[in-house]
């Protein structure tokens, strides 16, 4: 039972000239992007480039410092807390670390959104949960405790939980991190199949170039505090932009310095460290 609204909006997620950050500190500025139903959109960028901040804005965990974040044509920054709750019911989120509930077993973790937001009977609930666990290859792990499964398995359970309500917008934060090659390929195909079958919009926050280029319709590359490039995987692959080239080919030299820049605070610490007696 997908949680479809009566009128499907054109854009599941839309960012219009958004600046994001924490307190006075701005992480990303001037970000505009669209995600339509059925589309798989990859948001890529280096570590610490602000990808997860973007996801937090999409779920309403942080508000935009500038611009508008629209989910299903509604401005998240302007909506009431009840309105935000109903928007969140139409989203599924896969957290970077899985964020499985440690007091529940694998089955109950996946069943959690169904128990909280639907009134289906136990038999149907069991079927739906086992079906989702089957899709991530963990049907027979339903009875295990969260502490008894590996990190990769936990992420697959979290994936099953994110999609169990068959939401209209699914946000995946690093869905490929920590997965073995077999699970990685299956997960990528699963994300694409869900988008095609349910017509849901999918946003992948990732830095895995190969897998995301294989399944994405549109790619946004964030870097240097803003949107560095956007386009289809083919356009980006053909781009001559030095930042895009460096990121896609993983080159150490280019516009992005591999070394963390030295600051006066570091220089001060270093001189104190060298002055210390053994």
């Amino acid at each position, binding site marked *: 039972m997908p949680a479809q609204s009566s009128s499907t909006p054109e854009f599941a997620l839309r960012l219009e000239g958004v600046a994001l950050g924490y307190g006075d500190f701005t992480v990303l500025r001037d970000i505009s992007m669209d995600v339509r139903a059925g589309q798989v959109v990859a948001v890529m960028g280096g570590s610490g480039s602000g990808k997860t901040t973007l996801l937090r804005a999409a779920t309403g965990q942080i508000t935009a410092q500038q611009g508008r974040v629209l989910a299903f044509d509604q401005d998240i920054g302007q909506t009431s807390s009840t309105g935000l709750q109903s928007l969140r019911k139409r989203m599924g*989120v896969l*957290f970077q670390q899985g964020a499985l509930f440690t007091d529940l077993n694998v089955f109950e973790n996946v069943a959690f959104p169904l128990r*909280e937001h639907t009134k289906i009977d136990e038999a149907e609930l069991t079927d739906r949960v086992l079906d989702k666990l089957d899709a991530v290859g963990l049907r027979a792990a339903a009875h295990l405790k969260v502490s008894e499964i590996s990190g990769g398995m936990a992420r697959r359970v979290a994936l099953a939980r994110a999609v169990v309500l068959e939401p209209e917008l699914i946000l995946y934060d690093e869905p490929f991190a920590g997965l073995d090659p077999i699970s990685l390929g299956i997960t990528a195909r699963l994300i694409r199949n869900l988008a095609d079958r349910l017509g849901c919009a999918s946003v992948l926050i990732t830095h895995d170039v190969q897998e995301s280029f294989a399944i994405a319709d549109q790619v946004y590359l964030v870097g240097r505090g803003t949107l560095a490039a956007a386009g289809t995987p083919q356009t980006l692959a053909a781009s001559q932009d030095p930042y895009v080239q460096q990121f896609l080919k993983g080159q150490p030299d280019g516009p992005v310095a591999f070394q963390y820049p030295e600051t006066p605070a570091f220089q001060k610490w270093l001189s104190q460290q060298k002055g210390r007696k053994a």
Partner: protein
Amino acid sequence: MSGSNNAIAVLGHWVRSRVAAIGYFTRFFGAMLARSGIALSRPRLVSQQVHFIGNYSLLIIAVSGMFVGFVLGLQGYYTLNRYGSEEALGLLVALSLVRELGPVVTALLFAGRAGTSLTAEIGLMKAGEQLSAMEVMAVDPIRRVLVPRLWGGIIAMPILAAVFSMVGILGGWVVGVLLIGVDAGAFWSQMQNGVDVWKDVANGVIKSVVFGVTVTLVALYEGWQAKPTPEGVARATTRTVVMGSLAVLGLDFLLTALMFGN
């Protein structure tokens, strides 16, 4: 001059932060009470917590109750024997346990055992982004996670205090009647005559309910406020024991003055 100004500023900051913390704590309690409807609409969530929280503390409370009963039996006998009124031993043991030691010692042990577990659990749920995940799923973590635990603690505490008092009375009986040889009939009949259901037992139950609210609330608040790091959770669990125990002892004095004064 600037030194004294600085001292005033530090004091002012300290007072302000304490007042703010009390305000936040009160709002936190209010937020949980306002969401307590889930305890009625989904009682299974609460009964699960009563089971978990009760299990955490049952053994330590039963064993402690037994030793406290042994000691009360011995000390009570030594003192009462001086006045030739050792047949009042049952009454002394029962009143000491039902009025004071049952609720207080149970609450202190509860803070150390179940309270720390609750704080660590909530703190680790916060550190593992579980509470954020719940919020993003449009599920209120205060309603879904904290409220059932609060009511679980409130229900479990009087039951545990009753277990403590019961085992303690049996401990007093073992030492007084079986080992020392106080008359069994006098031991039980004095207790039956002297312990009032309302004045003694009900007041003891009220005390344990108040302590249940206090200790569980402190434990949940500390977990909720904990910095999501290993050090933050470790500090929060220590604060649960310190603040929970002090609050129980302070409240016990207040309640005793209100309940048993003439």
